[in-house]
């Protein structure tokens, strides 16, 4: 009998601290499935960031190191440089990557560090109680934009596009996990990113648009609707960079 469903070996069999309806668990599972499929669980080191996903190390059956806020790309650089045989990934939120850790992620991409950065962009600080993040949409009400985000609080910028222009980045994609079809596409992107890391081509990154029902103050279903209706137009989906395709294009 063929097993068609189960918990990936790379995913710990524990219950998580994530809120009901939160998509972090979906993204964790996709990464775990990819690690299983690539057969790299036993040579993987994850780097946890600060934010809701700080406890990611409890949910993967891989070695893990927890980085200071925003510094996961620098920590991942150190791990990978010290042991290039390892498969290394960071798991960061939009606050961690796009605010406090902007310098570290840009320079890791610029240097072409051979790890995979996964960004869970839900446009809000979850762990600290729903404050505005750099990617919060204009007009959105958060704990620190009680009247909605106005221009005095800055405007959201696009991290994946920013990283895609770095010469050292070989694969950059943006996906979402607010419906089944796009969950499948997200897994495909994550797998591609890890594959190119394993080929030693350079820096890879997948920005995943996800929800935050708790801090958005709406139901899980409504929050997935918000991802599809509001986040996707602001943060366009797609493979922003794939050097393997560009090479193929040249020969076509």
């Amino acid at each position, binding site marked *: 009998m063929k097993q068609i469903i189960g918990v990936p070996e790379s995913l710990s069999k524990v219950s998580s601290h994530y809120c009901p309806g939160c998509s972090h668990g979906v993204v964790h599972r996709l990464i775990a499935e990819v690690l299983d499929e690539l057969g790299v669980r*036993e040579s993987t080191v994850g780097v946890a960031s600060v934010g809701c996903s700080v406890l990611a190390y409890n949910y993967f059956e891989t070695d893990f190191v927890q*980085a*200071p806020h925003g510094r996961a790309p620098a920590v*991942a650089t150190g791990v990978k*440089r010290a042991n290039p045989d390892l498969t290394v990934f960071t798991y960061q939120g939009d606050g961690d990557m796009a605010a406090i850790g902007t310098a570290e992620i840009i320079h890791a991409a610029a240097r072409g560090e051979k790890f995979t950065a996964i960004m869970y962009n839900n446009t809000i600080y979850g762990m600290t109680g729903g404050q505005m993040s750099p990617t919060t949409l204009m007009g959105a009400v958060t704990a620190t934009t009680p009247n909605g985000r106005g221009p005095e609080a800055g405007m959201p910028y696009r991290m994946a596009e920013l990283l895609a222009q770095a010469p050292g980045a070989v694969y950059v994609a943006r996906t979402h996990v607010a419906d089944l079809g796009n969950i499948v596409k997200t897994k495909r992107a994550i797998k591609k990113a890890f594959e190119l890391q394993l080929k030693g081509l350079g820096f890879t990154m997948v920005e995943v648009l996800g929800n935050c029902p708790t801090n958005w103050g709406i139901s899980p279903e409504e929050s997935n609707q918000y991802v599809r209706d509001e986040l996707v137009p602001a943060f366009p989906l797609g493979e922003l960079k794939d050097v393997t395709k560009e090479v193929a294009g040249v020969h076509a």
Partner: protein
Amino acid sequence: MTATQELTMVKGNEALGEAAIRAGCRYFFGYPITPQSELPAYMARRMPEVGGTYLQAESELAAINMVLGASAAGVRVMTSSSSPGFSLKQEGISYMVGSQLPAVIVNVMRGGPGLGNIQPSQGDYFQMVKGGGQGDYRLIALAPATVQELVDLTGLAFDLADKYRNPVGILGDGLLGQTMEPVAFPAMRPRPDYRDDGLTGAKGRAKRIFTSLHLDAEALEQLNHKLQAKFKLMEEEVRWEEVHCDDAELVLVAYGTTARICRAAVEAARKLGLRAGLLRPITVWPFPSEPLARLAEGGVSRFLAVEMSAGQMVEDVRLAVLGRGEVHFYGRYGGMVPTPREVLGQIQQLLGGASK
């Protein structure tokens, strides 16, 4: 020391780099800042020759976190900086202590506060010795006074870091970093294997995690108990040197470059018949409190702390002496270096000798 007896003239910063490589360090992450810039430059040239990795980070924040990552992967790793950059490393150092990760962190001190200047200083004693980052923690901090001692203590620093799974600091100053002196380097040690607690992938074993996060208060208190017990053990690593202390009426206390100046002043005082001595902390943490207390109990009535700061180490001298003797202070700062003559003047004031 298994030294190759050949003496080489080397600048302090470069000697430190070579000593680190000979101690088996193959990973260096840094960021340019004067007056330690010769060290990363040396590593950039030397590391590829020995199959090591030199990487210039985008900031001192990034550099210390690359060190954190490399240490988590189980290698001997080092970073260096000077005062303003050392401030930026404090967060990473605190995380490394909390995660029990070893590394060697060098601070070639310069004048402060703020951007200050690039002249020698000892204004970061508090930051190195009292803990510049968050939480209850300690670092063994080694304070060499000569380029040869810098070489010797660098090897020791790596061994102590690994022994205690804790970062170890090397506290130098701009003068030591820039001084050229003849040194004998120890023999090249073989490149060490990955540490047995390193993150090598959870192959055939349970996963390993390095974290400093313990949301449960009882668990975090337990970790702190463990760390405090470790710091207590680290106190056994105290090292110091005494010069003319046996019959001294006045004992100067100084470390690093200032100790060299004080040694010259003490020798000059002796020629004048003044019974001055010098106690030189080689580890500024753990601080040689017991030998100082012994001197105070043994009849030394006066102590003079001399620093290139407005008075930082002097607080530890007072704590060691505990009122059993007078504790005086003489400091120059802002990048000013005291001369032996100035210090001799201080000795003469305290011991009543006529100024010559």
